[in-house]
């Protein structure tokens, strides 16, 4: 990057001469990459046909699994062929030309390593979760089965457009597309009012973010005259617009993009839709609301990172919002009883970590955490889904216990354990490394209160370990005990009179759980792999991030990609307790995680009555009572929204409608129309309906006119009437 950008960020880091990005290649020979998108689209069409013809088999699932697997394979092939960013034009979409300018947004793909990184786990997990869903949704075969899988296909298509698009408009297409797919799938159980409301809420809250994205696109286009990544990056790279970097738009762009990212990735203040989104079927929660779609915000900021570097304050905001969201969501997650909700808040919290990572200049850490989180959170959700599936929708962790001792549930219990270990950041798991990459950087990077932010994040890590194992200890460990939920399938096997038998997951669910749990464990491997070029840790993930726009413009990334402040070359090297942050963090987070883990085992496995005792103790003390109450009521954020946004708008709507009916229409329009009638009222007595009175009036009028004429003639002509 040019010095123009470097000058802007000199407050944060010393400027380091940058190497321009590799030129983008038009790769027409890679036209087949389009099939990464077309496969889900074809699957969508076929599933739609299945729905139209009411296919009563698992055909839609197999179509979807097969097409997503094709996408995955193609992604991997493409990833191995690709070494420089390339552009693949598919067809012309929106282009307006005029004399002296044009607006071009084609349906084209922009493939760089960041794209490949994202697409690999999106399509890979998509395939596996579709396979899982083929069993999970089987009670709906012939009913909503095809609808479900067409939704999944639509989601994968939209997510592909979002990640692989070559311009911001394609990104927007995917952005709204995944929002719609999420709406479709959250509202899958469309007869449940809660599901419909949650779907609506998700779409509308996301739309607020979309507004930010739309405005950002307008602003970027009107400032730079293009929405294509490669042109934008080239312009920024070459400093074409260096003179305009003081323009207000350059400062506004990152904040607008941030709004979009916060909406999609459920950050303060727009996170409220994500916990409600758990009304959707669990595979959807795993795929869309944990692993893939919600990371779109991270992707957006990573992709548009150069714009953020032009306005460093925006990164401070990102960091703080991320850190605070992580803390807030973790505190709420601690106090919930619904397993899926806990994991949902945990997702919000982990996404907060990722934003924190972006804010403290480690796009590598953020992306790595996205990658690991996708696996372990997917495992957790899928395991929770298996429980829900088997226990007729039961998700209350107080009503389930001892799963690991039940026949057929061991795989679920132990894969869930793997997920928990990773999420809690237990030493040497994938979550441990990816989280540390972010936490340490918070102490390294200079920024307003970043050190405090680091401690907040460490405290959150403690809470995370606690609430994660709270779930596992309650549900999987302890004595065997369960109550079924209220979603008894009416297939005759377990009527309410009969005793309830949980049905254990079969092959598809178990297989997918094991594969993804292995993935979650293996996700730590890249950390140990040495980068071929720069010989620093982070392996191919760091490589992939650093070869993309996500690292463009971070000073020093050329020397030591990803962990930019890794060595002594760094001027403001931070420290924790006098130690190197990266070394110290291994110890600190290990210890903190251990404490949380111990606390969870104590309160929720060994002496469960202590937990209740603690709760009642807290509730009995007036000075601390508000804390558990507020946490259990999610800090009343929904209520605040209702009071501050929904109710006033609703009122405003009624006022506007009243205004329209009575003032605009009633007073102005009808009033004007009534005016002639009012005037006519004076003359109305003449219209009495009696023929003769009309005749008298007429005769009188005629006489009057004649008289008048005679008089006038006399007046004008001196009385010479013939």
């Amino acid at each position, binding site marked *: 990057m040019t010095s123009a950008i470097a000058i802007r960020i000199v407050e944060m880091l010393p400027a380091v001469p940058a190497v321009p990005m590799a030129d983008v290649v038009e790769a027409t020979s890679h036209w087949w990459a389009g099939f990464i998108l077309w496969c889900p689209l074809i699957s969508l069409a076929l599933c739609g046909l299945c729905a139209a013809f009411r296919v009563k088999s698992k055909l839609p699932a197999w179509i979807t699994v097969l097409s997503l697997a094709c996408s995955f394979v193609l992604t991997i092939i493409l990833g191995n062929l690709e070494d420089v960013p390339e552009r693949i034009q598919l067809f012309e979409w929106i282009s307006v030309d005029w004399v002296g300018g044009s607006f071009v947004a084609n349906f084209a793909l922009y493939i760089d390593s960041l794209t490949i990184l994202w697409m690999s786990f999106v399509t890979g997990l998509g395939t596996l979760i579709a396979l899982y869903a083929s069993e999970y949704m089987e009670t709906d075969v012939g009913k909503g089965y095809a609808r479900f899988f067409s939704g999944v296909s639509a989601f994968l298509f939209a997510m592909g457009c979002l990640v692989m698009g070559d311009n911001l408009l394609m990104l927007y297409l995917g952005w709204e597309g995944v929002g719609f797919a999420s709406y479709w799938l959250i509202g899958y159980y469309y007869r449940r009012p809660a599901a419909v409301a949650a779907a609506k809420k998700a779409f509308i809250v996301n739309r607020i973010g979309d507004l930010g994205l739309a405005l950002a696109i307008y602003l970027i286009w009107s400032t730079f005259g293009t929405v294509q990544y490669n042109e934008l990056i080239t312009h920024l790279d070459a400093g074409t617009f260096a003179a305009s970097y003081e323009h207000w738009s350059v400062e506004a762009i990152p904040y607008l993009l941030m709004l979009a990212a916060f909406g999609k990735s459920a950050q303060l203040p727009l996170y409220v839709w994500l916990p409600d989104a758990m009304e959707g079927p669990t595979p959807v929660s795993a795929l869309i609301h944990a692993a893939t779609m919600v990371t779109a915000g991270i992707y957006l900021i990573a992709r548009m990172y150069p714009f953020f570097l032009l306005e460093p304050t925006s990164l401070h905001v990102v960091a703080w919002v991320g850190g605070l969201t992580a803390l807030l969501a973790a505190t709420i997650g601690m106090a919930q009883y619904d397993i899926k909700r806990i994991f949902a808040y945990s997702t919000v919290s982990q996404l907060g970590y990722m934003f924190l990572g972006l804010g403290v200049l480690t796009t590598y850490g953020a992306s790595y955490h996205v990658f690991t989180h996708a696996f372990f959170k997917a495992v957790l959700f899928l395991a929770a889904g298996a429980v829900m599936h088997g226990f007729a929708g039961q998700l209350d962790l107080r009503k389930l216990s001892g799963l690991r001792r039940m026949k057929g549930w061991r795989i679920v219990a132990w894969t869930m354990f793997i997920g928990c270990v990773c999420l809690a950041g237990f030493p040497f798991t994938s979550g441990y490394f990816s989280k540390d990459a972010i936490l340490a950087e918070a102490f390294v990077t200079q920024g307003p209160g970043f050190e405090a932010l680091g401690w907040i994040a460490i405290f959150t890590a403690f809470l995370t370990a606690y609430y994660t194992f709270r779930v596992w200890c309650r549900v999987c460990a302890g004595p065997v005990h369960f109550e079924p939920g209220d979603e008894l399938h009416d297939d005759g096997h377990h009527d309410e009179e009969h005793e309830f038998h949980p049905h254990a997951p079969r092959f598809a669910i178990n297989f997918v759980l094991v594969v993804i749990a292995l993935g979650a464990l293996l996700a730590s491997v890249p950390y140990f792999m040495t980068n071929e070029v720069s010989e620093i840790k982070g392996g191919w993930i760091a490589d992939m991030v650093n070869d993309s726009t996500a690292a463009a413009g971070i000073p020093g990334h050329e020397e030591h990609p990803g962990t930019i402040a890794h060595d002594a070359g760094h001027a403001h090297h931070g420290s924790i307790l006098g130690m190197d942050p990266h070394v110290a963090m291994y110890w600190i987070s290990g210890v903190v995680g251990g404490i949380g883990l111990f606390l969870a085992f104590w309160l929720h496995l060994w002496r469960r009555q202590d937990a209740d005792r603690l709760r009642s103790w807290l509730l009995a003390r007036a000075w601390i009572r508000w804390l558990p109450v507020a946490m259990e009521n999610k800090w009343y954020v929904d209520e605040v929204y209702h009071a501050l946004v929904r109710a006033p708008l609703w009122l405003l709507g009624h006022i506007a409608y009243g205004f329209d009916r009575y003032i605009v229409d009633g007073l102005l329009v009808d009033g004007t129309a009534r005016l002639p009638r009012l005037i006519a009222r004076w003359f*109305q007595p003449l*219209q*009495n*309906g*009696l*023929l*003769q009175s009309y*005749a*008298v009036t007429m*005769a009188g009028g005629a006489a009057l006119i004649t008289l008048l004429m005679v008089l006038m003639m006399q007046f004008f002509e001196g009385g010479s009437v013939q």
Partner: protein
Amino acid sequence: MTLQLATTFSQLSLSHYLVLSGLLFVIGLVGFLTRRNLIVMFLCTELMFQAAAIAFVASGRYWFNFTGQVFVIFILTVAAAEAALALALVVLLYRRRSTLNADDWMELCE
């Protein structure tokens, strides 16, 4: 020619005709205003028509301008057509309420 014709009608000046026309018109008008029977009222309007026609024809004769006579023929035609229409309407109205009193139809007064 003017002289010849003038001697033939010397006893009857234009004013005679106009007075006759005026009388006819007033009779028609008074009849129209005082009677309630639709047919009589209609006949009265015819009377007024004819009064106007006499005035036209006399004036046309007086000034030797045949427009007046043309107009009378026009009036007669219109009156005939009108009579047919009006009587048809009267018959229709009678069928509705079996009365010919004009005051029974007051719906137009709002």
